[in-house]
């Protein structure tokens, strides 16, 4: 159990801690709006990346299947939402209908990807998933001919925002004397979803399914010998990971209002993977921390590296984006070399990585 959340042994401290975290999370958007609405948007994207990273964590962290094409499911979810709620086809379904559809479609693709790759070993699997991600992107780019489905590289614009009755998530409203901007409303919605997803993940990890995944990750042959249906369990991991990706994709679509294949390139898959690896594969809190750190990294770099360069050289030599990517790469390499279990390693993963290393 985590020390901050030790409800059993230190209930008072745990409750006070939880209350403090809750207050900070509720007040945060007001503070950020004070600095600039831009920061609320960044925070929303960070939460979306948390959701994505948690979904990938099911596949990579729990079940130990390296998926390098995860962004494809995000894309599937995003395009499902965009096609069913935009002027492109003239359809405007409400979001609570589309999100489950998006999750189901992504889940279907997850199984399609999972089924033929069940027999593959880790590194082959990684390459096939990577290829799958590329195939999806190529199709999104080209499915404008002969029937215009995805509108090709131009992408789909004017996607409907979330709407509950008369309450639209894209406009500014005043409720009880407080002004809520669009991004702020999305922030609260995303926060609720994030908490729900974290709760699901925590329960999943300790469940029969979670333990089965762990067993498969550690030793597939032994797991099968213990009576675990490894085929179904692996498919389930792909399907669940994909559904989370699909839901996140749908929300991304609604929040951005515009999507194009550009948003779903391989680098994004690698970025989500970096978040999982950096935080600690298999550790839910670690993954959340990794996702938050890496999503804010480009903004922090923009505000530190650029002025620093201008001060030293008189102009911007290196784009913060380039530096960010270099740091990503470096982080992946250094993490694997020196702290292969991540910032917050899952206890089991840590033991595994350390004993295998010393035993050779």
């Amino acid at each position, binding site marked *: 159990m985590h020390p901050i959340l030790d409800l059993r042994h230190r209930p008072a401290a745990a409750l006070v801690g939880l209350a403090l975290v809750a207050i900070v999370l509720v007040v945060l958007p007001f503070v950020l709006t004070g600095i600039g609405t831009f920061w609320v948007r960044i925070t929303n994207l960070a939460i979306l990346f948390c959701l994505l990273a948690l979904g990938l964590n099911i596949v990579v962290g729990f079940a*130990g299947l*390296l998926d*390098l094409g995860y962004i494809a499911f995000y894309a599937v979810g995003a395009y499902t939402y965009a096609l069913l709620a935009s002027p492109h086809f003239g359809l405007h379904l409400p979001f609570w209908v589309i999100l489950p559809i998006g999750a189901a479609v992504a889940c279907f693709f997850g199984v399609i990807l999972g089924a*033929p*790759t069940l*027999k*593959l*070993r*880790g*590194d*082959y699997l*990684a*390459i*096939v998933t*990577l*290829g*799958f991600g*590329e*195939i999806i992107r*190529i*199709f999104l*780019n*080209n499915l404008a*001919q*002969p029937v215009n489905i995805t509108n090709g590289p131009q992408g789909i614009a004017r996607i409907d925002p979330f709407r509950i009755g008369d309450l639209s998530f894209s406009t500014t409203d005043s409720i009880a004397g407080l002004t809520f901007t669009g991004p702020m409303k999305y922030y609260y919605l995303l926060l609720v979803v994030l908490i729900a997803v974290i709760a699901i993940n925590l329960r999943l990890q300790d469940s029969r399914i979670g333990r089965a995944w762990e067993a498969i990750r550690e030793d597939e042959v032994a797991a099968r010998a213990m009576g675990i249906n490894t085929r179904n369990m692996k498919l389930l991991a792909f399907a669940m990971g994909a559904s989370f990706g699909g839901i996140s994709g749908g929300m991304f679509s609604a929040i951005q209002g515009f999507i194009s294949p550009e948003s779903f390139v*391989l*680098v994004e898959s*690698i970025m989500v*993977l970096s978040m999982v*690896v950096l935080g600690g594969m298999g550790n839910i809190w670690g993954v959340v921390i990794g996702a938050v750190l890496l999503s804010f990294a480009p903004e922090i770099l923009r505000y530190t590296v650029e002025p620093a360069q201008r001060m030293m050289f008189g102009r911007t030599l*290196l784009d913060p984006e*380039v530096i960010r*990517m*270099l740091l*990503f*790469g*470096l*982080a*992946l*390499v250094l*993490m*694997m*070399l020196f702290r*292969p279990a991540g910032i917050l390693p899952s206890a089991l993963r840590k033991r*595994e*990585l350390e004993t*295998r*290393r010393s035993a*050779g």
Partner: protein
Amino acid sequence: MDTFLQQIVNGLTLGSIYAIVALGYTMVYGIVQLINFAHGEVVMIGALTAYSVIVALTGAQVPLPAVAIVLVATMVAIPVCMAVGYTLERTAYRPLRRAPRLAPLITAIGLSIILQHLALIVWSRNPLPYPQIIHTVPYHLTGNPNGATITNVQIAIVVTSVAMMAGLVTLVYRTKLGIAMRAVAQNPSIAGLMGIDNNRVIALTFVIGAGLGAVAGVMVGSYYGIAHYQMGFLLGLKAFSAAVLGGIGNLAGAMLGGLLLGVIEALGAGYVGDLTNLCQLSGWFDALKVRCATDPNVTLFGSNYQDVFAFIVLILVLVFRPSGLLGERVSDRA
């Protein structure tokens, strides 16, 4: 007939480049059972280094024939790539040789990102036009004046590839280093007991693969006339698919797989448009007849799906014959 012949020629040219890159993957896999994910970036560095050399030499008006300039550029690119290959092995793969499988794969992805963005800083974000200093001469293959041709550049690429493959096979099967490589591939600890320096042999394997990659980079650059910091990714992926198609770890397999993949891709790109042209069905659907009257090419999949073929081949091979076409000859690993 001419289209078919032309696509075969294009496919064989492309395929011999894939084969050379695939050899780099397969050699490393054969010896340490590791996918060197960053190999595509080595090819990219080779292409860009050669680009700089060619631009510098032509810019300085050096009185050398065009072929000599390309040769000099290749000779510069080879050691640069070998150094990159050695650095990769030394810093990222050697420390992780005994770690679980995921670890070296993730470092490889990291290295690939680092190499790409270093190349972005050194060269540029934009696609660089490869100087076309060699005058392309097409030779007709049939009597038809508008029919299939093969250019001198294509001939040079195929001949160079075949020569390099022959050289590599000689190295692996006829020299002491080759014996050592095969020994390490079979059983590293016994090889060590026989007095073979495992680390040296593995490092040399990476270096040789990188050298081949450098030549492949120059070939890609001159063939497509363009070099870009991201060119290594797709090329590497396709070459890896070729290696898997032939049976990874198997030298002959990589060559066969490369050539096959090149031909499949060229034929696929050449014919997929005609094969999926919905106007063939216009007798069946009235709506199609109306549309085909104005536009006779209502194709479901055009040649812009070219890049998909390699992945489909990869997935099909892994599902139906994971050991590849020539995969079962394990003793041939090098």
